[in-house]
């Protein structure tokens, strides 16, 4: 019997405190003045010592943004955002840029420790049996800046670049210039354009030709300061024949007011390259009455630019008051493949409108979408997905499976699939189900001694099992616990 596989399924050790990342770190910050105008854009660019071309790039995006209107097509509802009432830049004073671990403010290190994020570069205990712990390189982004990136030296030995995007702009301008905005253009959509104007920090990854990245890469985003927006920008390039697995995690303090998070993530996979991108999104969701919480308006897109390339998105969305997010794949290279695996959980008054777009352009491109939506409390949970087959995408195939699970009877789950095919040879399959946890299932679990919330966590973890298995091993147990925690208070 494979013991490891089964031990993962420990759902009973669920923490009692609901949102345990809701604390605030007392740390001196440098804030830009509130509001947004060309001067603020220049201020951010200057803070980051950016070259002229990037300042101009930002300003152009800002000018464009001023002519745009907020999208309203998503099934989410919120009062108008006052974009002039935000700080667009916030950085801990003592750590102006990424440094080595010894130089990082101890208060920040403690914060990440509290969040359960390992910033220490644990050495492998050579020769000790069973000590080969998996290692994960971490880029820690605190409000608008990256405070540290671990394992950089070791990664450099393999030619892998893993650093903050600000550093990449300085150290690897040719790569940044070539790829930034090449997947999500500055004109793409309201929030992506805003991000292009004011983006703060995020991660940059470059995997050279033929290299299989020797460890998991991950970025932890933490919003700390109040009345700020976080606008991170991540760019990952997998050169020919390379492979990388990357994971991002997100948390924020519990606050009564809403906070805006508008990120842009761009992935580029060249010939025969593969990128596996996983997200565990646990921004503060607001309280049970819907007060506070993060507005998570995110544009994530991967470009399978090369032949036989592959991009796989896995997301576990449990946080945020509102989630508006559609990680997509442009399947440009022939035989390229896109995957989207999603678990989206909404509880309380959370609103989720999430899904994906699979744009088939090349021949024999394939895509797979597995979405598991779980709605509890008074929440609303929508899957919105587009499968588009271009004229030249002969032999394209898509398989979509969307399952929704309702807990209680005050929540809603909706599935909105769009299919557009311009090539008659394409095969597009779509399956969808909606179910409830039945009273009989609950009673059966309870009669075996499980509490109501334990039973729900168990059943939900069963429901999302296929997707959970897509996550890197190291994160599966934590994620299962997180699922249990996010469903607390979903009954009664």
């Amino acid at each position, binding site marked *: 019997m494979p013991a490891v596989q089964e031990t993962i399924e420990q759902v009973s050790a669920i923490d009692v405190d609901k949102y345990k990342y809701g604390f605030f770190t007392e740390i001196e910050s440098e804030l830009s003045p509130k509001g947004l105008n060309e001067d603020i854009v220049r201020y951010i660019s200057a803070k980051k010592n950016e070259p002229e071309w990037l300042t101009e790039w930002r300003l152009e995006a800002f000018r464009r943004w001023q002519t745009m209107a907020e999208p309203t097509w998503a099934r989410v509802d919120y009062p108008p955002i006052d974009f002039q009432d935000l700080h667009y830049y916030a950085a801990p004073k003592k750590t102006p840029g990424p440094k080595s671990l010894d130089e990082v403010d101890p208060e920040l290190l403690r914060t990440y420790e509290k969040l359960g994020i390992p910033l220490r570069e644990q050495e492998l205990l050579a020769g000790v049996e069973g000590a080969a712990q998996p290692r994960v390189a971490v880029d820690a982004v605190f409000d608008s800046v990256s405070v540290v990136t671990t394992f950089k030296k070791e990664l450099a030995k393999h030619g892998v670049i893993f650093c903050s995007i600000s550093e990449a702009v300085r150290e690897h301008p040719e790569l940044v210039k070539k790829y930034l905005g090449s997947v999500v253009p500055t004109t793409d959509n309201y929030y992506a354009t805003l991000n292009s104007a004011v983006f703060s920090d995020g991660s940059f990854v470059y995997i050279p030709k033929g290299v299989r990245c020797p460890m998991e890469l991950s970025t932890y985003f933490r919003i700390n300061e109040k009345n700020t927006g976080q606008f991170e920008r991540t760019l990952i390039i997998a050169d020919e024949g390379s492979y990388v697995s990357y994971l991002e995690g997100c948390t924020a303090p519990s606050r009564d007011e809403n906070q805006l998070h508008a990120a842009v993530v761009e992935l580029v996979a060249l010939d025969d390259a593969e990128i596996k991108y996983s997200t565990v999104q646990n921004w503060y969701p607001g309280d049970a009455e819907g007060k506070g919480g993060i507005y998570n308006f995110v544009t994530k897109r991967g470009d399978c630019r090369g032949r036989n390339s592959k991009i796989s998105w896995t997301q576990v969305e449990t946080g945020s008051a509102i989630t508006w997010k559609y990680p997509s794949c442009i399947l440009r290279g022939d035989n390229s493949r896109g995957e989207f695996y999603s678990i989206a959980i909404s509880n309380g008054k959370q609103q989720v409108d999430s899904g994906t777009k699979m744009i088939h352009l090349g021949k024999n491109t394939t895509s797979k979408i597995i979405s598991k939506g779980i709605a509890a409390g008074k929440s609303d949970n929508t899957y919105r997905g587009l499968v588009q087959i271009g004229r030249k995408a002969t032999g394209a195939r898509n398989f979509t499976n969307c399952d929704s699970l309702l807990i209680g009877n005050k929540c809603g789950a909706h599935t909105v699939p769009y299919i557009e095919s311009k090539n008659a040879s394409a095969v597009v399959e779509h399956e969808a189900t909606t179910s409830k946890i039945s009273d009989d299932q609950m009673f059966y679990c*309870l*009669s075996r001694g499980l*509490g109501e919330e334990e039973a729900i966590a168990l059943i939900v973890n*069963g429901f999302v099992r*296929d997707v959970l298995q897509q996550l890197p091993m190291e994160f599966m147990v934590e994620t299962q616990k997180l699922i249990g925690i996010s469903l607390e208070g979903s009954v009664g």
Partner: protein
Amino acid sequence: MLEIKNLHARIDDREILKGLDLTVNPGEVHAIMGPNGAGKSTLSYILAGKDDYEVTEGEVLLNGVNILEMEPNERATAGLFLAFQYPIEIPGVASMTFLRAALNAHRKARGEGDITTPDFMRLIKDTAAKLNISPEMLKRPVNVGFSGGEKKRNEVMQMALLQPSFAILDETDSGLDIDALKVVADGVNALRSPDRSFVVITHYQRLLNYIVPDFVHVLSAGRIVASGGKELALDLEKNGYAGYVQDAA
């Protein structure tokens, strides 16, 4: 151990249990037989705490405590177990995971920590072997695609792991082949002890050759209408319920 006094229960507007009395002492095995629709499963669900039923009168004491006020999981961790007549399917949840969660819930109620993986594996392996359950089956989702007999064996497996002090087996013998019947009966007999009691609901006298009861009761139209020793089952097998059902009317 268990005392049921004048239990009346209804579902919607229909009274199903109409003044049921039953006392089970520690170490005893009671068999309940009776025609379809008599209320046997209803009784077992009410004992386990299913909330579809409204108890209008009477009480149920488990070791002196009125359990009707308790949640189903509290009853379970207090030592009560129901082997379902129709076990429920839980897609996606491996049987193994389910067993472990149940076992840990019991341990938690006793103030113990979670069972370690090696201990759990050993326990599962031993228990499954005794009940002729293949480890492959335990990797599959709870009851999903299990044959009728497999479902019943899985119920007994859960009972064997949780070691209840009071167990109700609702037609656990139905759907078992002859060999499985013996295996299941052996499983139950292995658990018999002076401080553990069983109520075995069955339609077939044959089971009682393997699990020999101390008492046999006839439940008809919501009441116990006759009680006796194991020879009562033989009589029922020969003559049917006709005589008892009329008495009840």
